[in-house]
């Protein structure tokens, strides 16, 4: 009996230590205030609500971009612009919103953080993958204008799905760019936002702590990501589905068990969702690798106890930043790869269909939607810190300014009045070949590993099955 009790107590002790370890070491929260001379009341230095507010603005803008009725709609455009470029108060969170038992705690953007927008944080460089030398904000303004007069976000003549184009591009031009080309780059220098001073007057966090937190916020992962599987993260983002009970999704998200999902720390947003999507296949670990590197960096900052970082500490932090950047780039490349495969598959289906066939419009819409995701992600990839050079140029040429439509036409330019210029040229077969080349390019230059929708997977398998060609056997 004594022995039994002893084993029981030991087990309980181990499990308690385990819980504490999870809370202390594996959750991105409750890091203490380390700032010297801080006189406020806050108990933790962790803060990234501005980034979460921008995720809510992004999700809402995407939803609004699919609300058009095919006619010019200044009201809708104004509303979309308020989410993109405005800072006005009272903006409701259109998405993510409560869905059945999956209760979302916040209703308005201001409940997360006030006065935020996306335009101010959008990549200002020229977007070479689209015509007319538009900058990131120019391109989003252009697409928002088009989306406001599109039919539920679709332009089936030119082949555009604006919600997808807007959303996927923002994932690069705002979230990825801000994180890897700002907070994880220049903010890690010795001079900018030092660790022995507050980020801003009166703040509970040091310069470096907050810069690091902001980068984590842009990744959009729940604070307790390391205790979740990619499938669970995926379900949270989907807020359940027909086959997956929303109650389960709530259970995975609701870390503090208050029956609601706090967008500030428990929700999954786009970048983390796509990392989990790639990881679901089991070949990659983007989500845990990125979150783990963020946690390691944050632990290093907490351990610095508000002192200025040494060169060695900053070097270590840059190491974590590099892991985050490379893996984040990997998730964008994986998504680009996946949608090149989807576009290819849609083209196979469309080739065998006539416009009068049942399901033709649905198939065409899928094609246009997938192309929007492909284009959006391929442009997002080009907004990071690295100059992708020849890879980006090739990608842009292969994907083009628009998909080849069943009438053989493709958008090749945008005129001064913002109208699309179409022309024939690339054949259906050649454009399918381009999709295969996109996948090959991403394997060769960006080493994608998850490779969802790999259109030449069987070729690898058959090549291996037939063995090496090299032979000195003589008959």
């Amino acid at each position, binding site marked *: 009996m004594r022995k039994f009790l002893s084993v029981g107590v030991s087990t309980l002790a181990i499990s308690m230590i385990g819980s504490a370890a999870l809370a202390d070491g594996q959750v991105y929260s409750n890091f203490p205030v380390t700032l010297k001379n801080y006189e406020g009341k806050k108990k933790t230095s962790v803060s990234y609500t501005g980034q979460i507010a921008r995720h809510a603005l992004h999700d809402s803008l995407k939803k609004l971009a699919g609300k058009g009725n095919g006619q010019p709609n200044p009201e809708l455009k104004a509303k979309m612009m308020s989410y993109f470029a405005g800072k006005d108060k009272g903006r409701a969170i259109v998405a993510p919103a409560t869905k059945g038992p999956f209760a979302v705690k916040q209703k308005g953007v201001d409940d997360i953080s006030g006065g935020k927008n996306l335009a101010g944080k959008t990549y200002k460089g020229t977007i070479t993958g689209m015509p007319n030398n538009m900058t990131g904000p120019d391109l989003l303004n252009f697409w928002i204008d088009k989306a406001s007069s599109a039919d539920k976000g679709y332009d089936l003549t030119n082949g555009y799905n604006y919600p997808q184009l807007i959303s996927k591009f923002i994932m690069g031009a705002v979230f990825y760019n801000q994180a890897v080309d700002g907070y994880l780059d220049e903010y890690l220098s010795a001079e900018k936002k030092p660790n022995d001073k507050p980020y801003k007057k009166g703040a509970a966090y040091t310069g470096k702590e907050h810069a690091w937190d902001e980068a984590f916020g842009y990744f959009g992962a729940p604070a307790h990501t390391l205790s979740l599987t990619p499938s669970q993260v995926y379900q949270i983002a989907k807020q359940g589905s027909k086959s997956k009970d929303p109650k389960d999704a709530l259970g995975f998200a609701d870390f503090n068990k208050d029956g609601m999902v706090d967008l500030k720390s428990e929700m999954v947003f786009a970048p983390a969702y796509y990392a989990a999507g790639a990881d679901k296949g089991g070949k990659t670990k983007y989500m845990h690798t990125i979150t783990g590197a963020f946690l390691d960096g944050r632990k290093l900052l907490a351990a610095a106890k508000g002192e200025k970082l040494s060169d060695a500490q900053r070097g270590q932090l840059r190491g974590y930043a590099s892991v985050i950047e490379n893996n984040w780039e990997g998730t964008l490349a994986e998504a680009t790869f996946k949608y090149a495969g989807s576009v290819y598959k849609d*083209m*196979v289906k469309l*080739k065998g269909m006539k416009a009068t066939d049942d399901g033709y419009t649905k198939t065409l819409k899928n094609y246009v939607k997938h192309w929007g995701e492909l284009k959006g992600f391929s442009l997002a990839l080009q907004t990071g810190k690295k100059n992708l050079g020849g890879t980006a140029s090739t990608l842009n040429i292969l994907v083009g300014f628009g998909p080849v439509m069943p009438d053989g036409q493709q958008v090749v330019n945008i005129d001064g009045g913002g109208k699309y210029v179409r022309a024939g040229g690339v*054949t*259906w*077969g*050649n454009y*399918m*070949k381009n999709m*295969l*080349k996109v996948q*090959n390019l991403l394997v060769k230059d960006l080493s994608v590993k998850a490779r969802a929708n790999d259109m*030449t*997977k*069987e*070729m*690898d*398998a*058959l*090549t291996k*099955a*037939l*063995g*090496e*060609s*090299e*032979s*000195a*056997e*003589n*008959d």
Partner: protein
Amino acid sequence: MESLLLDYLDRVGDMFANPQKRVFVGYLASSFVIAAAFFFLTRRLSFPFICKALFDKKVWWSASAKGDYKLLLINQAVMMGLGPRLIGKLAVATLLFESLHVWFDGRVLIWTDAPGWVIAFLFTVTVFLLDDVTKYWLHRILHRWPVLWAFHKVHHTAETLTPFTVLRTHPVEAVLFTLRATLVHAVAIATFLYFFGDRATLIAVLGANAFLFAFNALGSNLRHSHVWLRYGRLVEHVLISPAQHQIHHSIESRHCDRNFGAVLALWDWMGGSLEVAERKRNFALGVAGHRGNRNNLESLYLVPFVESYQSIKHPLRAILGPLTRRGRMPESGRQADILTMGPRPKPSSRP
């Protein structure tokens, strides 16, 4: 340096451990069993005598066999350097697969209701047949074009045959064999995937094409041996027997340029180069005019370049073969050797 050495040893080991290779230990063992059974049934030899006959030191440690071993070991190092520089199967298959989209303006999937096993069977047979017929044609060209015969001659200067004679190959030939396999496999892979999608799979045994596995397991190594195993006149019009391949190695002018086939005799039958085996072997092996002096490294590696160059000094010779001192135009490089040969050698005795 250490990793290079390990890579080299790995390659040598792979020859014996990989069922896609002819000298895989399993195939060597099955050939031994077949040869032993053959000797027992035809000559009623006891097991020790069978072993003595099969592992005759005069065969396995002859100057010719030692030449085989030198080539086998050195070629592995040579191909370690050359192999990665040759165009890969995957690259060619990808290029063809992509090009098919352009040629047919899209993707064409045919016979979509056919069961997967039917497509797998078709793919496996196609690869086997394409492999075999292209091996036949390449082999024929190696004999017929003097510029190439100079290199292939290295294989034919073997005067005793062991299973390792299959690797008595000049590196230039090895490159040609590699490119042939690359092209043939790439064509098969690209076209089957394009038209049949992911139903195209290989039926394999121990990782090797099922047909090739059967061929190798049923005594393919006896074709390079002194075991005179015939299949009979009828079967030898379809399958190349070990005895038929030994005829291919004959020094006799009457056997010149016969039996080029690897597995199937059909190609020789159709190409007019078929020779069925007689009851007894009554010929020597090797190349006329080159007996007994072709097993040193210089002869195995360098002389072929000189002879090949000599054959292309005059463009007409390169295409039609050299004019001989007898003023006759031979059809092939090998015939040229026979027409210029010295005294005819005595036939070797059967083991």
